[in-house]
């Protein structure tokens, strides 16, 4: 007989005939290029560069946070995001702008420094892990007309949240929706019609947001804050197709995925770990951003431009080394993590709730995916799945500073030779990772003085004092002098 399944929810999900057809798609302004096109009120020149999205998901419940780095005049800002159901006012929230920055800095690829010990004093150990820098990515009132009904467009609800006026629309035909949006002053990119159709046919509602100038002025904020929406849907995906209408070039999307289970991966594209734990020359410290972007470009190219890169996967409870402090429970809540709320937030364990259960529910595993997509290589929207894989991963690059003291002993000479070899290896690693010119890299390497040595150097053992004397004499010149003493 077939064993009784322990993971009932999955089976339930599968066999349940009454699962609703919930979908989430989005398309929006440049800052949100992942899910859409910009619909400007004026002919503002805009272009898509990079977007950042945070998704907190447990079961079918999802909180989507869309960072807003819109640079133009706020009155030109408008966005359209298809949503699975008619969203009520309570399902939409204006988030804290610092949350995405916190997620970014916590999970960013990092540079780690180690300082070599004095080779003449091997017992004195002090490894100093110093986190120097991290890659910083530039993250990338509505009039209604009589024709709405004729066009097959229904205004399901409308409300104001923070500085945004929100409209929830449903549509029967893409041409109707496009006409309605145009009539109401939204500027649609060419080709929007054809791309709206698949989403309308899947019976989506459309979340339309624009800035309420009065509220914006009252809010006192300089920039637009991120919008957050909460919905329940078995479908775990991000629409990127619509976002590619604004630009033919590559677009970068940073996705911060939070789950109580483990890593999140793509199911319809390969998810590849970014090269990590590589030792690179110390001068990279001053040009880490340049290094990381070059390495990313090259790796992206090597993988045929059709994969998503994993840049970070770690439990939120800790980090090693930390590029920023882990998010506090309050910050996690602001980022959309809702499952930790089920336990008592004051720390008390309620009746019937065991401590282990509480710990489990407080688990937040963060996955950072970096997708660089283009129309020809990413034809389909991004589909994700949660996995139980709790393996940690981080983009980590190591600098090893040579010992700067005199190191006059025999071991010191050997050490210097090793440093030269190591530097050569680091230069080659850097060249292969970034595609930079190897000779130019070599020119940038710090010079290490190494005396010529012979195979017989280590044959006749000398005391440490003798070795130090020998080192002095070596410095005075004559490769043979240390031999005949």
């Amino acid at each position: 007989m077939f064993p009784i399944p322990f993971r009932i929810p999955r089976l339930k999900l599968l066999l349940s005939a009454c699962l609703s057809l919930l979908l989430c798609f989005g398309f929006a302004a440049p800052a949100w290029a992942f899910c859409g096109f910009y619909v400007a009120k004026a002919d503002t020149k805009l272009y898509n560069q990079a977007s950042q999205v945070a998704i907190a998901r447990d079961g079918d419940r999802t909180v989507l946070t869309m960072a807003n780095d819109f640079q133009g005049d706020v009155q030109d800002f408008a966005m359209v995001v298809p949503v699975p159901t008619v969203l009520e006012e309570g399902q939409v929230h204006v988030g804290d702008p610092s949350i995405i920055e916190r997620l970014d800095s916590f999970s960013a690829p990092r540079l780690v420094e180690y300082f070599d010990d004095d080779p003449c004093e091997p017992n004195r150990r002090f490894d100093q892990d110093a986190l120097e820098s991290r890659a910083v990515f530039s993250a990338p009132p509505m009039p209604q007309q009589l024709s709405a009904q004729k066009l097959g467009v229904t205004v399901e609800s409308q409300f104001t949240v923070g500085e945004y006026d929100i409209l929830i629309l449903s549509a029967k035909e893409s041409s109707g929706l496009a006409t309605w949006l145009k009539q109401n002053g939204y500027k649609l990119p060419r080709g929007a019609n054809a791309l709206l159709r698949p989403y309308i046919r899947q019976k989506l509602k459309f979340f339309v947001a624009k800035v309420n100038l009065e509220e914006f002025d009252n809010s006192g904020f300089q920039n637009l804050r991120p919008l957050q929406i909460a919905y329940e849907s078995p479908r775990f995906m991000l629409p990127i197709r619509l976002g590619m209408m604004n630009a033919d070039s590559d677009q970068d999307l940073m996705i911060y995925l939070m789950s109580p289970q483990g890593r999140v991966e793509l199911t319809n594209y390969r998810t590849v770990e970014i090269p990590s734990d590589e030792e690179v020359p110390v001068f990279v410290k001053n040009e880490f951003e340049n290094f990381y972007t070059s390495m990313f470009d090259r790796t992206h190219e090597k993988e045929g431009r059709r994969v998503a890169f994993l840049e970070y996967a770690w439990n939120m409870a800790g980090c090693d080394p930390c590029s920023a402090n882990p998010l506090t429970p309050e910050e996690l809540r602001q980022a959309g993590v809702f499952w930790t709320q089920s336990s008592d937030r004051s720390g008390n364990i309620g009746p019937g709730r065991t401590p282990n259960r509480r710990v489990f529910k407080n688990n937040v595993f963060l996955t950072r995916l970096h997708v660089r997509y283009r129309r020809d290589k990413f034809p389909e929207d991004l589909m994700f799945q949660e996995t139980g894989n709790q393996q940690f991963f981080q983009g980590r690059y190591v600098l090893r500073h040579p010992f700067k003291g005199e190191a006059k002993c025999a071991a010191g000479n050997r050490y210097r030779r090793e440093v030269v070899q190591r530097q050569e290896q680091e230069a080659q690693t850097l060249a292969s990772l970034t595609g930079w010119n190897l000779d130019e890299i070599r020119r940038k390497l710090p010079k290490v003085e190494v005396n010529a040595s012979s195979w017989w150097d280590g044959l006749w053992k000398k005391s440490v004092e003798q070795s130090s004397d020998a080192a002095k004499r070596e410095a005075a010149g004559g490769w043979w002098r240390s031999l005949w003493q």
Partner: protein
Amino acid sequence: MANFETWMPRLIAPGAWLGQDARDWQIAFLSMFLLLGLTTRAWTLSPEVVGGAIATSLLTQYLCQTLSSLASNRVAKTSFNWRSPLITALGLSLLLRVDSVGTMAIAAIAAISSKFLLRWNTPGSASTPPKHFFNPANFGIITALLLTADARISPGQWGAEFWYGALFLALGGLVLRRVGRWDTTVAFLVSYAGLEAGRNLWLGWTGDVLLHRLSSGSLLLFALFMVTDPRSIPNHSGARMLWAGAIALLTFILRNVYFQSDAVFWALFILAPLTPLLDWLFPKDRFEWHLPRLSSVEVSS
């Protein structure tokens, strides 16, 4: 050199290296895919997991075979069948992702023991041993998905590159031609592609979306090496077509209505019990691996 005339033609003839049993080919190709995945796709698959899968499968087969022989008093006539459990272990390693050897062992034990525990005797053919109806690797995968927290299918692990698809098709075709189950793959792929094409057309997506959905390496591996297992699928060719079409339809529904990324494995699992029914409705001689077919002593693989 005396036997030159004997071995030279064997050396040149295709298939001479791998013998007459189609499973030898299958083992060679699956090993090759595994190696390809490990080297070019950078899978996080440890040798312990692959070793664990192979060892557990072989051991379970040995134990089950021994027990089964004892029960039916056929001890002397049964030789150890190592090919089938090896194929199952390779299939599990290719398709199932786990974080611990224990999880893989659960999958392997479930896979192999399902062949001995879940089988069915076709009415009117009392002379032949009962036939198992779950594909062992599929049964192992679903068991691990249900019972453990770390087992998963990674449908995106191969990417959607054309040459992988071509390679799978070519090599899978080679095995299937020897087994004679090409029709199942064709029926499955044609029905599934047809359904996806219809949906694509209705939604208004461009052709490259369809192509991307169909060129998934995991889907092709399934179509060529799992849904075609001649020992567990219906014997009658018409029944097989019907059955493969039903799997394609269920996969389509699970994927597009219930958003299951591993839909294809669930579809096969759910519809596998239809095999006895179809064998009863459409009677036909069952498949045996060895070319000079053994009659009654062959223990189910």
